[in-house]
């Protein structure tokens, strides 16, 4: 379960997130939607413990910045960055040690195989394309078997096969009871995944929708109803950065 309570984030005098609260229950997929500058990235970075904030973040009931919470949490940033001098496999080994998680060679190879990285495990970080880095980043997040996972624009830079695989992985995680939060612009990419959607604008959540509540209504229509600015978002538009 991921709980955000009264989260406020300021950059100097600029208020990026204003007293936001929401909850993604166990085994559900939450989507964070919003136009550029809505505050999505600030929320994501706050949950991942990368920025200072006021309010509370709880991961499986534990305060977000504690080591215990971080052990059950995984994060895929919008822009992946690799260690130049480490190979793909060494990135995985490092993450396993950092999270103190055991994984068999077969498990690791199966994961790499799913994202077409098996033959690239000996490639160094500085030899990878952006798409490959994103795949490595996803593998690193999955290998620790998290209970809560945060994906910031995960589809950007991925090829169609990887997008299909990632969607399958997300649904598998859901079936295993993992809590997933995805921040994205690409409504089309998440329409078959979502359980609960939070629509953000100007640092506030202006609409919360659960799949049970809206029935057959289209996610895109819902979004435009509340934001009333269809030009702010595209189905494969640019990513949000704060």
């Amino acid at each position, binding site marked *: 379960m991921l709980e955000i309570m009264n989260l406020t984030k300021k950059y100097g005098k600029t208020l990026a997130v204003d007293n936001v609260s929401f909850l993604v229950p166990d085994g559900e997929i939450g989507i964070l939607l919003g136009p550029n500058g809505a505050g999505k990235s600030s929320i994501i970075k706050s949950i991942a413990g990368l920025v200072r904030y006021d309010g509370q973040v709880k991961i499986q009931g534990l305060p977000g910045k504690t080591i215990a919470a971080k052990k059950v949490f995984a994060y895929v940033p919008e822009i992946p960055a690799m*260690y130049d*001098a480490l190979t793909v496999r060494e990135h995985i080994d490092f993450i396993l*040690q950092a999270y103190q998680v055991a994984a068999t060679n077969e498990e690791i190879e199966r994961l790499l195989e799913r994202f077409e990285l098996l033959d690239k495990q000996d490639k160094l970080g500085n030899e990878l394309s952006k798409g490959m880095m994103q795949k490595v980043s996803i593998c690193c997040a999955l290998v620790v078997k998290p209970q809560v996972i945060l994906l910031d624009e995960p589809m950007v830079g991925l090829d169609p096969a990887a997008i299909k695989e990632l969607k399958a992985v997300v649904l598998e995680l859901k079936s295993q009871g993992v809590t997933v939060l995805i921040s994205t612009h690409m409504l089309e990419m998440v329409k078959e995944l979502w359980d609960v959607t939070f629509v953000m604008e100007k640092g506030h959540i202006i609409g919360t929708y659960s799949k049970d509540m809206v029935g057959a209504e289209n996610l895109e229509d819902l979004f435009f109803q509340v934001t009333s600015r269809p030009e702010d978002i595209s189905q494969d538009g640019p990513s949000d950065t704060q």
Partner: protein
Amino acid sequence: MATIWNLYKRTVRNGIKRAIKKPITYFYLALILFYAFCIPFSMKVLLEEFRLNTPADMATVFTLVVFWLLPANLISYAKRKGLLYKNADVHFLFSAPISPKMVLIYAHLRNIVVGIVVCFIFLASGIFLFHITAWQVLAYIAVVLIIDNLMEGSLMVMLYGAEWLGEKGRKIVIGVSYLLLAAFVVLAFIAYLQDGLSLESVVKYLHSDGVQCVPIVGWYIGAIHLIFMGPTTVNIVVTVLFVIFSLLVFVIAWKMPCSGDYYEDAMKFAEDYEELRLKKLEGQTARLGKKEKYGKAQVVYKGGGAKAIFYKQLLEYKKSKFFFFDTTTLIMVGLSIFLGYTFGTDPDTESLREFVIPAVMAYIVFCMSSVQGKWGKELKSPYTFLLPDTPFRKLWYATLWEHVKSFICGIAIAVPCGIILKVPVLQIALSVVAYVCLMACKLYNTVMTEALVGRTLGNMGKQLFQMMLQSLVIGVGVMGAVVGMMIGAIETAYIGMIVILVLVTFGLMTAAAGCFQRMESAE
């Protein structure tokens, strides 16, 4: 600890593996070995000649090093800017279940390793050059390797990680650090009033009790004095204070809670540093964390094709605060005035006055690294290659403003100095033209170097290649000047040089334009 140590080990191991595959590594290694062999022996002769080879002289050298490094380190830690994280650290380390204090130690590991290497270099120099004794070696290791690392590491953890300190507290620490520096300045001023300025007075100041009494930095200097110069009441007291302070900050750093609030600042610093690194790799100027501010401006585009690049650059310059003037222009004016007065007031150098301006210009052209201005960006932009015009015109209009800048810079160097030295107006004018030609050659050399060896050589290799080309150009220019000098006076020498350089520039420009048929050659 095992996690970050393994990460560090693997990074270093793979880095070495990668380095040994590059031929340039062996060149650097040979250079280091050469210096490691030559410097100690030449230093030994020099120090013996000036009788500066005692342990007390080692204390002087070490005091200077402490002055240079420690206050700067403390201030940067308090500003949360002393540790360098990569974007990969932000991605993998900051969100991982690793104690934020360990993440700090990980970044500090690089400093510690460099510190240990420097410490052993000092130690070897101490034994070989300053004849320090065995117990001094042991005491040095204890103080520099153990206590200093303990103190600096703990202070770093405290200043970065202490969330209770808050923004205001951190500002107070920065203020106190500057006060410590101010104390040294005040003491130096008093010493200057008492003893004047000489090598002896500086050494006396560095060994003074007052310096050793300044908290933290001075205490460390006191401990060094105790080791190398023998005990005094002051250095014993401050050494004890230094040890107590080190232990105290260690305990505070160990006990205090830290949840990683500093990640935000470290992340920002990592982004800024990466941006700076990339800009420097591209040969551009940039300041850490400073984004250039632009005002509003307009231009009217005249003509078409590649000429649009010229007007676009004009628009960019008009939006800049100081057009295309920067600190370099001021430095050039300052240097010109300084040289003018230096040579103008010394009767011994009267016969050399006419050669001051060309010598300074040649030095700037040859020795100062070339900064890629806006033209560098143009040549990396796909639009430049897509523009419907000839490569020659594209290169000309992309670099035209650089020639104007060279002209202004030439005036800044030549005019003040020329007026003070009473150099004839024609000579000043000709020297400015010669400077513009030399800078143009340098610019097109850079383009040629990038196109010819940009993909095969590293930055250092490229610079050496460029210097080689540039020395050829200057050599040819000098030959023109010699021929001109033989025909007439210094004015004809300038004209001879300019004629030759214009021809060379045109040749280089044509060749460089030929290299830029495809974008591939600019990458």
